[in-house]
């Protein structure tokens, strides 16, 4: 009854993730079908499969909508997975790359590139993401460095991460204080988070990173699951806790850095997608990591659709919509399922 029950629970959890993936596919289709141009669905479909010679139509669908819809799914998945791993290795339900200064580092990097952008020997569309990614990496290195020196306990990494968050927020405020009104406006818009900067090339990069990082994390899935029983018990089971924690931290920081670099700071997804996954499928990381990816993707994709529907003709900043849409859903989930455990 132990094995059979376990297999049944596993099948149920896989079913839940499959169902969420199906809903994600629907959301993705809606994302492609909606937009300020109010195109008929049939025309969108024809364009996607290549049966159109209308340059206007293919420009809207293939150059605007497809990159945005793909980016929503990929960035959502990246943020969901990185939030799940952060919460696991830091034994902290509030941890995400947002609370640990990785996103703040990216924000500072982006603002810096916006301010001195003209002086950089880079094409404009890539200078900001590169700087954002670079400073996300720096923030990660700071936190991991502290962990390396003093033993990577979860408390220490959380404290170092929060310190990093305040440091980069202060530096960002300084830049905003010094910036011209035009640059300030650009910085603030970047910080809102937006999918409008998406392109197929950028979506391809995020896809590549997600595809590379997920297997690496899944290889540690059992060890990450064991870590949730506490450091000492994980050690007793043969886990090299400090190494695992730093390895996973750096891996997901890379994931977050890439995602945030292209779309700006979208805070809520990384925090909430793992909680939804945990409530529905438990903490066996082999299923929880893919589930966090799917729920993160679903949240951001649905937010992308909603951002176009709130005010027809305009696209709301996605960072705002994500929280407005996600908070009530999350509250409902916690209240409805909270009594079960």
């Amino acid at each position, binding site marked *: 009854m*132990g*094995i059979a029950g376990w297999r049944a629970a596993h099948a149920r959890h896989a079913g839940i993730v499959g169902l969420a993936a199906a809903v994600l596919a629907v959301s993705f289709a809606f994302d492609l079908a909606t937009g300020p141009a109010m195109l008929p669905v049939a025309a969108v479909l024809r364009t996607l499969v290549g049966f159109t010679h209308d340059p206007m139509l293919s420009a809207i669908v293939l150059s605007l909508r497809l990159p945005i819809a793909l980016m929503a799914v990929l960035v959502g998945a990246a943020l969901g997975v990185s939030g799940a791993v952060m919460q696991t290795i830091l034994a902290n339900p509030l941890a995400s790359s947002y609370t640990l200064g990785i996103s703040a580092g990216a924000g500072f990097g982006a603002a810096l590139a916006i301010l001195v952008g003209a002086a950089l020997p880079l094409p404009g569309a890539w200078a900001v993401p590169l700087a954002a990614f670079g400073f996300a990496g720096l923030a990660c290195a700071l936190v991991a460095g502290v962990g390396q020196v003093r033993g990577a306990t979860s408390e220490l990494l959380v404290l170092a991460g929060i310190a990093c968050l305040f440091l980069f927020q202060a530096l960002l405020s300084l830049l905003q204080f010094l910036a011209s009104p035009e640059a300030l406006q650009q910085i603030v818009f970047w910080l809102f988070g937006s999918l409008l900067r998406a392109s197929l090339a950028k979506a391809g990069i995020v896809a590549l990173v997600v595809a590379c990082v997920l297997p690496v994390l899944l290889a540690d899935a059992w060890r990450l699951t064991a870590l949730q029983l506490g450091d000492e018990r994980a050690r007793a*089971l043969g886990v090299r806790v400090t190494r695992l924690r730093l390895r996973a931290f750096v891996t997901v920081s890379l994931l977050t850095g890439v995602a945030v670099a292209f779309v700006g700071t979208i805070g809520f997804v990384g925090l909430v997608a793992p909680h939804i996954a945990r409530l529905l499928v438990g903490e066996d990381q082999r299923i929880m990591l893919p589930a966090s990816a799917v729920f993160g993707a679903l949240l951001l994709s649905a937010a992308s659709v909603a951002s176009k529907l709130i005010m027809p003709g305009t696209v709301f900043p996605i960072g705002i919509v994500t929280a407005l849409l996600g908070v009530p859903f999350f509250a409902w989930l916690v209240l409805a399922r909270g009594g079960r455990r």
Partner: protein
Amino acid sequence: MRLRARGVTVRYRAVTAVDGVDLDAAPGEVLALLGANGSGKSSLMRALAGVTKHGGSVAWEGGGAVGYMPQDNASSAALTAFEVVLLGRLRSLSLRAGAAELAAAEAALGELGILHLAQRQLGTLSGGQRQLVFLAQVLAGEPRALLLDEPTSALDIAHQLQVLSMVREAAARRGLTTIVVLHDINAAARFADRIALLRQGRLVMTGTPAAALCAEALRDAYAVDVAVGPGPDARLVVVPVRPVAA
């Protein structure tokens, strides 16, 4: 497996928690480790389990895994009892948990009579059930020796008896060298073949319960005056009387 530990020393910065302990344990033997809070019991266990840096030598002769069960930390991970026990096979678990691993987890739950708890969430189990699940986790790893750190703390007397009986039976059935940290001296007198008494990181007494549980040694180790006498079933019973005046 036979334990042969010599001069084991554990230091945390300026504090010496374990100070040159020599300890032996034979296969199939149940050794209770006693001592006041802070006497170095847990640190010694960690050194024997190989999860902390230590001086001296710890040799497990005969080969095989050492199953170490740390003190309960009240983790409420969203895992079922079955998943927790399966993690006992971590060293050999593939991503798709093989049939041998699943069978070992089920067998360990069955051995302790808690198969009915398999699909329960860890957070919904009682203290006694939790300890049995974690004991099953250790047993699932098919160890040749057991190191149990306070498996009965925070349990009522019925569950203390249940958990210690399970330990005793499993140790006898599998011929496990077992070292168990206990706070309850009478439980140690009842369940252990031998008792080792720690005081300020040093071993002050080892021997059978009848030999080790003398009033002087206990007074020395716990700073409490005790009365020791025969209990109803001829085993020794220890009753604390008053703290030793400083």
